[in-house]
């Protein structure tokens, strides 16, 4: 049943997600091409310079809107599909609650990941455009630049080799899942209220965030991540990020598992569709 649920969840949502991601990437491409042909600002009339500034601001607004719209669409669909009249269909399908919630979480996770990557690609295209412009005017050795970046990443974040790269990728993936599942868990908790369920969900969202922030902070103090900030050895930065990312990945993973099970149990045992 999970496969069928995934199929129909994808059919119902892919157009919106792909549209947002394509617009995001295209905007990056356009700004990148523009960046490559960027005029010398000293020779540009003031009104045009203002227009250019507005154009860049608009691009960043678009990036934020792309991320927000994807998230809002995911959360609203989850709520509507499960806890409004649409739930009459969702919860009368011959599938378990675990399968129903898992299909929503998997598709939402993939949509968020693709949106994250499309924003990254978009920014990358803009950066590429400006970098190409810079290299056109001041030719440099590309390999040397990339090597410089690699050293910088190692110095700051400690990213060097497969181990740390996997750690950071795991952190990124779990962070995406963590962000989505907080919303889903808050919506499930809101259903425990007899009335004002949406208000309940909003309040629970802020409470969960506050509690988890305190847990993250306390455990980071406990793991010694923060104390590294007060040391001044040459590799303090990379050690700090590596330890903090490891701690937060573990906490987030435990929180994700807990909220996933909690959402299933609440929906399974306390479902009350008005």
């Amino acid at each position, binding site marked *: 049943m999970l496969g069928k649920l995934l199929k129909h969840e994808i059919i119902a949502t892919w157009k919106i997600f792909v549209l947002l991601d394509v617009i995001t990437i295209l905007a990056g491409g356009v700004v990148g091409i523009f960046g490559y042909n960027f005029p010398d600002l000293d020779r540009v009339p003031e009104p045009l310079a203002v227009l250019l500034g507005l154009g860049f601001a608009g691009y960043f607004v678009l990036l934020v809107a792309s991320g927000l719209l994807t998230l809002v669409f995911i959360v609203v669909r989850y709520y509507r599909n499960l806890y409004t009249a649409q739930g009459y269909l969702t919860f009368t399908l011959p599938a378990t609650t675990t399968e129903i919630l898992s299909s929503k979480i998997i598709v939402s996770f993939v949509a968020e990941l693709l949106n994250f990557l499309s924003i990254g690609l978009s920014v990358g295209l803009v950066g590429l455009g400006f970098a190409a412009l810079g290299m056109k005017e001041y030719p440099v050795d590309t390999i040397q630049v990339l090597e410089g970046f690699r050293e910088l990443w190692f110095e700051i974040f400690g990213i060097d080799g497969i181990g740390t790269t996997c750690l950071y990728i795991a952190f990124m993936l779990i962070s995406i899942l963590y962000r989505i599942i907080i919303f889903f868990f808050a919506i499930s908790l809101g259903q425990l209220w007899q009335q004002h369920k949406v208000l309940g969900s909003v309040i629970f969202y802020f409470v969960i965030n506050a509690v988890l922030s305190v847990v993250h902070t306390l455990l980071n103090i406990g793991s010694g991540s923060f104390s590294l900030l007060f040391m001044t050895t040459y590799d303090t930065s990379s050690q700090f990020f590596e330890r903090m990312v490891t701690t937060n990945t573990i906490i987030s993973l435990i929180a994700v598992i807990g909220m996933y099970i909690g959402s299933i149990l609440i929906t399974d045992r306390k*479902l009350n569709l008005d």
Partner: protein
Amino acid sequence: MSNLIDIKGLTKSYETTTALFNVNLDIEGGHIVGLLGPNGSGKTTLIKILCGLLHPSSGTVLVDGNPIGVATKRVISYLPDSTYLDGNQTIRDTINLFIDFYEDFDPNRAYDMLQKLNINPDARLKTLSKGTKEKVQLILVMSRRAKLYILDEPIAGVDPAARDYILNTIISNYDPEATIIISTHLIADVESVLDDVIFLQYGQIALHASVDDIRAKEGKSVDALFREVYKC
């Protein structure tokens, strides 16, 4: 014949009210049952518990010998009292969903009924009128070969011509071995198709009898008896 529905000691309470109290009910297969009662009598609560949309506070509910869950959802075809399909989807998308999830769904029957009503299967549900949406929902529900059909207020809020169509669709599409539960307070319109009736009052069963028995014993129609029992 074994019971299709077996309910014992069912109670459903909310914070300040009790919607159902100690309901005991057996329904056999092959009947058309009217679930009758005024607003707030517990009809929809009972239906939602049967469909797994509400959890009982206490008591046991078995459908086809199984507690409410995946197995019972396979055999129940449910028509809610409100529009419940995703308005952004087309009718065809929804039919495909039913094909995938319900082994007993007959798409040919669904498309046939849509064609007879001149409804375009590629229309998005949100573009349809309220009456047409209700017809589409009924078509989907009645295109299954389910053991139990539960129809919550299927004729409320539609014009008399649509009521006739809906009742004809129900009668002409149901398997004689299946049971249909029709919840309504428009008794006069459905009385002619009912085998049994259940009167709900204040969350309890006030009467469970066959329509023939009511006519023979009481000497009046179900509609007349209803008006008498629920007189304000």
